[in-house]
């Protein structure tokens, strides 16, 4: 098998799955006007990941997943507590909680590194896309574990979104009305938080938390600027997410060579930059872009 199938294909698959998964879930954060919550959860799961890792002693997916879900629940609860007791705006409550939890995670990482456990800050932030290899290439069962984990979370998230399509749409648009009808918008929001946490943990090993944060927000935000149709927005965001993953990976692999440079680019970083460019393009050229006049008017009102 060629080098492409052994090295590039599994990396593309992992990056594409992670980006598509985060883009799918990010739609509901963007529509709830809670984009920062994705950022908060992606940071806040770190102590859970490291804690699970330290207890299990290896990159055991189940231990880290359990730790990350617990950390996400603690973060979501703490945000509510800080918001109520402190009577501050939600963004400030999220900012306070996730920076403290991320700092605790970094502290725990250092302790883990001191004990010679194989986990470090670079791996968490940038991921290890280059290390995802499919050495026995045509053998499906030999696909790297990260790819299987991502595919599993993606399938579960897609199934939940399809099964609960109308319940989610109603809970995101008008939670009070949803509750009055007897639906459970609180449970649906909790499920969203847990899925974002699961996406963060499934993605972090391959692509790192920076890419998770970018993909939770950029593709849905770009899609939001391009359509007024709910379903189109979600499908478009997934396409933009996976498209950014492929384009960013290609850019990282070929741009330095084309420029004749000897240095290399970080693939996760390139993907995040491409997704940011997609938002910029949608804001400048998308059908729902603000004209400069109305943007200035809204700034004046604000």
């Amino acid at each position, binding site marked *: 098998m060629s080098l492409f199938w052994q090295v590039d294909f599994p990396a593309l698959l992992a990056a594409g799955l992670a980006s598509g998964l985060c883009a799918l879930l990010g739609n509901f954060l963007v*529509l709830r*006007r809670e984009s920062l919550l994705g950022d908060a959860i992606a940071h806040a799961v770190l102590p859970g990941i490291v804690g699970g890792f330290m207890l299990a002693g290896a990159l055991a997916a189940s231990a880290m997943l359990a730790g990350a879900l617990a950390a996400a629940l603690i973060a979501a609860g703490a945000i509510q507590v800080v918001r*109520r007791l402190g*009577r501050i705006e939600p963004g400030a409550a999220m900012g306070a909680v996730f920076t403290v939890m991320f700092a605790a995670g970094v502290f725990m990482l250092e302790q883990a590194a001191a004990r010679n456990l194989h986990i470090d800050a670079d791996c968490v932030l940038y991921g290890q896309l280059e290390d995802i290899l499919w050495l026995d290439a045509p053998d499906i069962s030999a696909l790297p574990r990260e790819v299987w984990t991502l595919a599993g979370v993606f399938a579960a998230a897609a199934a939940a979104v399809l*099964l*609960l*399509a*109308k*319940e989610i*749409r*109603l809970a*995101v*648009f*008008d939670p*009070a*009305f*949803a*509750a*009055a*009808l*007897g*639906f459970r918008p609180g449970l649906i929001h909790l499920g969203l938080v847990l899925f974002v946490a699961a996406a963060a943990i499934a993605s972090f090993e391959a692509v790192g938390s920076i890419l998770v944060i970018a993909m939770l927000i950029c593709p849905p935000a770009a899609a*939001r600027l391009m*359509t*007024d*149709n*709910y379903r189109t*927005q979600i499908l478009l965001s997934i396409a933009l997410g996976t498209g950014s993953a492929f384009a960013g990976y290609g850019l990282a692999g070929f741009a330095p060579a084309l420029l004749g440079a000897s240095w290399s680019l970080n693939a996760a970083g390139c993907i995040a930059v491409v997704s940011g460019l997609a938002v910029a393009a949608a804001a400048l050229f998308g059908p729902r872009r603000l004209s400069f006049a109305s943007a200035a008017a809204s700034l004046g009102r604000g």
Partner: protein
Amino acid sequence: MTADTPSASPFEANGLTVALGGRPVLWNVDVRLPARGMSAVVGPNGAGKSTLFKAALGLAPVLTGQVRLLGEPVARVRRRIAYMPQRSSVDWDFPVSARDVAAMGLYGRVGWFRRLSKRHLAAADAALERVGLADFRNRQIGRLSGGQQQRVFLARALAQEAELLLLDEPFSGIDTASEAAILDVLAGLEGEGRHIVCIHHDLRTVAAYFDHVTVLNAVAIASGPPAEALGEETLRRAYDASGLRPRALAA
């Protein structure tokens, strides 16, 4: 319609006390709305009007007391009640059409997990037609005027085909054409024997639009036909700085 005994009150609160964020919003409220005619709840900002609806629907925590809707606890009659929250409570930039929103009124009947059928969409279209928005059904809700948005919300409540409609500020911030259209629809519903309770903000129109009015400011100050309930003394107690207006002043 079910054969309610004429004496049964569609909306009855007894000793209702609700606190939000540690502050009492409703205090020992007794309200018993009549079975016939359109009812209004009036009071200054922060008087607990919306909270009264939310407590009745089980959306706000009740400390003491109880509310019975259509003579029953709310959990047993959810399908028979339509609720229209304040227009400002949702994000009108949301990527859904007028028809999508009207169809949400049918979600309760469709139930968990199941999808809307063509029959449901036809019912949503019929509700939009009734509020005069048939031509706007595919328009994104952010591209409608304030009055049209209010009518979309009303269409969603209509689609529920409820016996009791709880409408939070249906006439707030809208043009006169929409106000007339909404009033017309509500009068039609009332004629069909449905019970209508509106939170209302405009004291000048209460007597013209409603048969019964409850004046609320944390406590129920008065309740009865507008001519009797809207006395000078009542309004002074409800709206003036003197007497019972601790919450709004303290804020």
